């Protein structure tokens, strides 16, 4: 199924330039794995980078640098050029987490060890990520999350289940790319829990008394 909600243009530029904070980049990579449309848009962003690098004025390389490069080629074993690998048949395994998440959460959905942080809300927080906050959230079906906005940027991608908010319906593969100005109150769909991966580069801001009660539970 093709995603309907995609990465923001500004987020793609940042990803292409290597400037997106690490936690947000993990969620963007997770979406890119699922979304050929965004991979094409990323190629456009990379083309801009390629041209900007070419436009720089430079001098010819030094002779010793050229000689060093040629010496490196001499040291290379004369291996056969490998053709691109054959098609990798990606069998669809509903238990398998996207590859971009493996370093942080392992590869099996079933093996995840959830921790309850609020009624109907479970969470696993990635440790050791350098730049922002990365977590998996599992929200019971038919739950209404507290109204909140974001101090900085937030990227969320649905892995399973779905939710609705003022921006529309979000199902598996869809990404919500939100910045500080947007206040939203997602309501998860009935049926199965909504499992998503979320990253922020600044703490969430909850409004309302329910939210203020929940905030400590989210650990922010």
């Amino acid at each position, binding site marked *: 199924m093709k995603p309907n909600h995609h990465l923001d243009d500004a987020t793609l*530029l940042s990803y292409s*330039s290597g400037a997106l904070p690490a936690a947000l980049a*993990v969620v963007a990579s997770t979406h890119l794995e699922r979304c050929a449309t965004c*991979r094409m848009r990323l190629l456009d962003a*990379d083309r801009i980078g390629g041209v900007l*690098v070419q436009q720089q004025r430079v001098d010819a390389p030094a002779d010793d640098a050229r000689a060093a490069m040629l010496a490196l080629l001499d040291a290379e074993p004369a291996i056969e050029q490998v053709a691109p690998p054959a*098609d990798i048949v990606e069998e669809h395994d509903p238990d398998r987490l996207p590859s971009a998440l493996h370093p942080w959460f392992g590869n099996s959905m079933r093996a995840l060890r959830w921790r309850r942080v609020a009624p109907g809300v479970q969470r696993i927080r990635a440790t050791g990520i350098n730049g922002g906050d990365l977590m998996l959230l599992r929200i019971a079906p038919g739950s209404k999350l507290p109204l909140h906005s974001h101090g*900085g940027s937030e990227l969320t991608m649905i892995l399973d289940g779905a939710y609705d908010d003022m921006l529309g319906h979000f199902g598996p593969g869809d990404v919500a790319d939100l910045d500080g100005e947007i206040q939203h109150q997602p309501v998860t769909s009935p049926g199965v829990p909504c499992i998503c991966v979320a990253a922020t580069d600044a703490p969430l801001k909850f409004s309302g008394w329910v939210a203020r009660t929940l905030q400590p539970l989210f650990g922010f």
Partner: protein
Amino acid sequence: MGVTNGKLRMMKHNNAGAEVLPFGAKRSVNHAINTTAPDARYWSAQMSAVSTQRDRTSFMRIYDHFAPRLQRYLRNLGVSGPVADELVQDALLTLWRKAAMFDPARASLDTWLYRVARNLYIDHVRREPHWLPIQEGLDRLDHVESGRLDSQPESFFDQDILKQAIDRLPPVQAKLVRMCYLESKSHGEISRELDMPLGSVKSSLRRAFAKLQGSMRAPR
């Protein structure tokens, strides 16, 4: 006197003006008229010679043009001289080893090398060990994708049109695009540095990307 001897002598003594040898000629042209870069078709032919014949002359043509530009790019990102030299060598060695993976229908050589250098920067300097395998995974997905479509013609997008579109960006958008790509600054860092609201940074970058993307899609 064989060409090889001439080449070696040229490297050692660099007595410009004596004999016009391929490298020497190429380099002095590059040096004098920095802006007349060969086009994507030219680089595609050099890559083809590298991958099918392991042709060093073609490889060094690529090196002479791209190595100093990648070096400048990495230095601007704050990479120290020796590390930048090493990463440039790594990037060109990657090209030598993986030349058969280069597909001119998907990306021109400057886009391809931009990706390689950017990935090395994120891997070595930002120390994000998971970035490289994830990018290789995304690359394989695109190979599978393009294999499914019927054989595509070599579609060289017009880099000159993109260059012109970059030159025509309004000053603020141009500045933000350069900070994003050539300084690898996050939206938050740009916002703080220019004392500009985060929302404005993002919307300016969105507008710039829309214009540049439009130039790449424009009918010729």
